């Protein structure tokens, strides 16, 4: 199963090598070679788009910019200055990659609206580049550039064969990169970014780095592919390069084929290119953009998973139908034109793929009654007695202040967590508990003050660095990666943890953490299929899989029923026994009393009290803060 993708790629490669050879023997018309070169070009471009926009969810409307930089680098270096064509092609890839990295440097650093602003930026960039090219005499100057026919290697007798082979190589490289990414951390980092970027960063995924790698690869492939296209065209102009075709085509191809799978954009390229070809030969050129627009809207609304998802549900049926119809129509002479046969076969196959049902895509989930498999240890009301003596200071926060606009959420809080402790962080709503957790996990910087872990300053570090230093957190409302299974949610944390493992090894290691929280039986379920309690346990499993020294539990028990609470309390105890210090933010004082070795009470952004649970809870100031200011407290 693992090597299906490599087999597919090898098959494509063999076909590509065989075709020019067979063509001479079987006397195929040149047209088919041109047709296939077109599909290969679009497969490369749409795969390039998909690596960034499909895998990571950052929609780009700027594929025309990457393509155009490739086209014009080839045109200027080879066409005007006579550099050798393959040097120009490499330079085209690098120039386009640099453009991508420049865009990423600006857009990927933004704190909010990153996805939206990235998309809008990429809408504008091709138009800016087009006017640069049009105005600059050194580039185009509005006249267009003629590109001579390159000197092809001697074994390729004709120019079209050279274009075919070059397009094929670029497409194969693009597909191989997309496939390898899907199997490795480079793709999985992007999948987590697509699902929830902030959570991914908090689990140790260096999100900025991986987005930059993705946009760099996207630019590199698109640039080289654009350079080959420039050779084929022989003449390039600003209007012909920076138009709407490239961004629209790659988006429609990827959406139609399926954005989550490496082969999706290639499948989409075959469909869209064949459709375009038939529309053009039928005299419907004016309709082709309308048809593409309609396909885009309908697929986005009705089948956003795309064709690949359907093919994978019914692999044999769709493949069989395709082969039978294609060969039947062509060989039986119903149509003399194989492209028409191809178009009909593709159309019928698509209908089958879009019919719901068939084999379930994900691995089957183990049915159970929804109850977590935890060995219930009776949890009485006995106070926590496991005081740890002499623990070293682990986390030290000093005089931490955080303001939002005019609101002062934290007004100078100092707090120390020692090794082995379980500190209960309590306080009324709005007292600053979650803000403090956000600061300690590096999700946001404090306005002033310092926070150190084991003596290392964490203020100013990005959250993934803080995660690698040894702080993990959970969210009040669970935020699992919804497109990954429970097991893979945990595997991600191991894969990008302090001692990173490969995908396979991480999946194996995930079992240990799932068992610790009692989710072992639900490893193959998707987060949408498990209940709130189980999602909260998943949050904990994912957090401890980063192997933290300090775990921040932000209201990890909110919204649970009493049985589930007892179960969660037991899980927290087990985590602590495994050697993790814990800060527990919690409203339920019963839980805090059971678990905490020490309590810190916040009120209105200041520390109100601190000490042993039994003592702190009798402090009149604490009781007053909890019962409300106007309540005249008669204590107990």
């Amino acid at each position, binding site marked *: 199963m693992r090597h299906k993708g490599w087999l597919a790629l090898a098959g494509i490669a063999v076909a590509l090598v065989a075709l020019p050879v067979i063509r001479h023997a079987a006397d195929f018309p040149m047209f088919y070679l041109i047709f296939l070169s077109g599909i290969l070009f679009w497969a490369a471009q749409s795969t390039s788009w998909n690596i960034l926009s499909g895998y990571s969810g950052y929609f780009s409307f700027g594929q025309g910019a990457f393509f155009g930089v490739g086209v014009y680098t080839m045109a200027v270096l080879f066409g005007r200055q006579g550099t050798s064509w393959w040097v120009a092609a490499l330079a085209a890839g690098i120039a386009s990659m640099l453009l991508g990295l420049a865009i990423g440097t600006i*857009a990927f650093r*933004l704190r909010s609206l990153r996805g939206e602003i990235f*998309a809008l930026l990429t809408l504008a960039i091709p*138009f800016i580049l087009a006017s640069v090219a049009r105005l600059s005499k050194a580039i185009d100057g509005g006249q267009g550039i003629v590109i001579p026919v390159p000197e092809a290697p001697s074994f390729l007798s004709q120019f079209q064969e050279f274009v075919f082979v070059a397009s094929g190589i670029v497409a194969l490289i693009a597909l191989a990169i997309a496939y390898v990414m899907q199997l490795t951390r480079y793709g999985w980092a992007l999948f987590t970014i697509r699902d929830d970027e902030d959570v991914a960063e908090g689990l140790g995924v260096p999100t900025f780095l991986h987005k930059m790698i993705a946009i760099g690869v996207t630019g590199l492939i698109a640039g080289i592919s654009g350079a080959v296209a420039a050779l084929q065209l022989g003449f390039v102009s600003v209007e012909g390069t920076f138009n709407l075709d490239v961004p629209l085509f790659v988006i429609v191809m990827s959406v139609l084929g399926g954005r989550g799978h490496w082969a999706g954009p290639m499948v989409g390229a075959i469909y869209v290119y064949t459709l375009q070809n038939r529309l053009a030969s039928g005299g419907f050129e004016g309709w082709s*953009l*309308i048809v593409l627009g309609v*396909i*885009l809207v309908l697929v986005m*609304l009705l089948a956003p998973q795309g064709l690949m998802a359907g093919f994978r549900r019914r692999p044999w049926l769709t493949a069989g139908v395709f082969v039978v119809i294609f060969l039947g129509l062509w060989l039986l002479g119903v149509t003399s034109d194989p492209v028409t046969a191809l178009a009909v076969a593709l159309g019928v196959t698509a209908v089958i793929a879009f019919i719901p049902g068939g084999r379930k895509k994900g691995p089957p989930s183990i049915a159970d009654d929804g109850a977590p498999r935890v060995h219930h240890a009776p949890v009485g009301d006995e106070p926590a007695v496991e005081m740890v003596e002499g623990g070293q200071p682990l986390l030290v926060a000093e005089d931490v202040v955080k303001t939002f*606009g005019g609101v002062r959420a934290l007004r100078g809080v100092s707090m120390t967590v020692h090794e082995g402790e379980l500190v209960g962080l309590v306080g009324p709503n709005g007292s600053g508990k979650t803000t403090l957790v956000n600061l300690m996990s590096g999700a946001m910087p404090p306005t002033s003050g310092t926070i150190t872990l084991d003596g290392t300053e964490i203020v100013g570090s990005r959250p993934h660095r803080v995660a690698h230093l040894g702080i993990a957190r959970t969210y009040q409302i669970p935020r699992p990666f919804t497109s990954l299974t429970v097991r893979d949610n945990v595997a991600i944390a191991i894969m990008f943890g302090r001692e990173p493992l490969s995908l396979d090894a991480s999946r194996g290691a995930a079992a240990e953490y799932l068992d610790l929280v009692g989710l072992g039986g639900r490893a193959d379920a998707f987060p949408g299929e498990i209940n709130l309690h189980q999602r909260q346990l998943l949050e904990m499993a994912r957090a401890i899989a980063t192997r933290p020294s300090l775990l921040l539990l932000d209201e990890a028990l909110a919204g649970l029923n009493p049985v589930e609470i007892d179960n969660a309390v037991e899980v927290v105890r087990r985590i602590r026994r495994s050697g993790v210090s814990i800060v527990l933010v919690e409203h339920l004082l019963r839980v805090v009393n059971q678990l905490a070795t020490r309590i810190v009470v916040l009120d209105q952004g200041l520390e109100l009290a601190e000490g042993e649970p039994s003592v702190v809870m009798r402090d009149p100031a604490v009781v007053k803060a909890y019962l409300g200011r106007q309540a005249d407290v008669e204590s107990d």
Partner: protein
Amino acid sequence: MIELQAAVSGALNGSLFALMALGLSLAWGFLKVINLAHFAMILLAGYLTFELATSTGLGPITTIVVTAPLMFVVGALIQLGYERFDVSELNSLLISYGLLIITVQVVTNIWTADFQRLPTEINPYSAESVAIGSLRFPVPTLLAAGFAVVLVVAAALVLERTYAGRALQAFGQDREIASAFGIDHRLLGVLLAGAAGASAAIAGMLFPIGGTLTPDLPFEWIGQVFAIVILGGIGNVPGTLYAGLLVGAISGLVAVIWTPSTSPFVVFSLVVLALVFRPRGLFPQKGG
């Protein structure tokens, strides 16, 4: 002097861009939809104005009697579609991109890709200009600025003063809470999208009065209009107007100080700088 003329003319042009940005900004801020189809409605309304004025004898401004209600319905229907399929913010970008492409191609098929211009006998405003002191302004520019300022101010007043406006603000801040307090978000959303469509119709009407039409105009607008949306602050109506005036004045000035062709770069660079340093807009609202 020429700089003053350029800056003021630029600001007046910028107000028309603010009018285009208004509907987008409101839909993004309150409905969480980035509606590229807004540009499609502006384009379509422009061509309908051209068609109605040349074939029925309606005055070009009078055509909004037809186009504004029509675009209200179109905008409302698109919003109903987004609601029905529960479209997310980023997906609305891709879907409305599809709608925009369809519209551009339909317009090309009907009216060709060539320039279309209203004949002077139908468009009495095209050749006129008004002198204010030593400055001169073409009437179409003043008309556009007038409509834009009136509509933007009206929108700001509706949002501030009316129940529906305040309900929308509540909805923009927290959908679920607002719904819990009995705000019919569906109806409000559809009304807002309809109103945005009507504003698109008015912006569209101003293009054939001021100049020529081509089907690929939306792609020339997109960069500058979104720059204004973001600089003004998403959902911030007065901010949108200020940003429009500012961007217009700067690009007018740059065009006379250097060359007209440099102004897109300067504006674009300013937008990039603004994005990096003020991603929430130049004119943050209270509490923001």
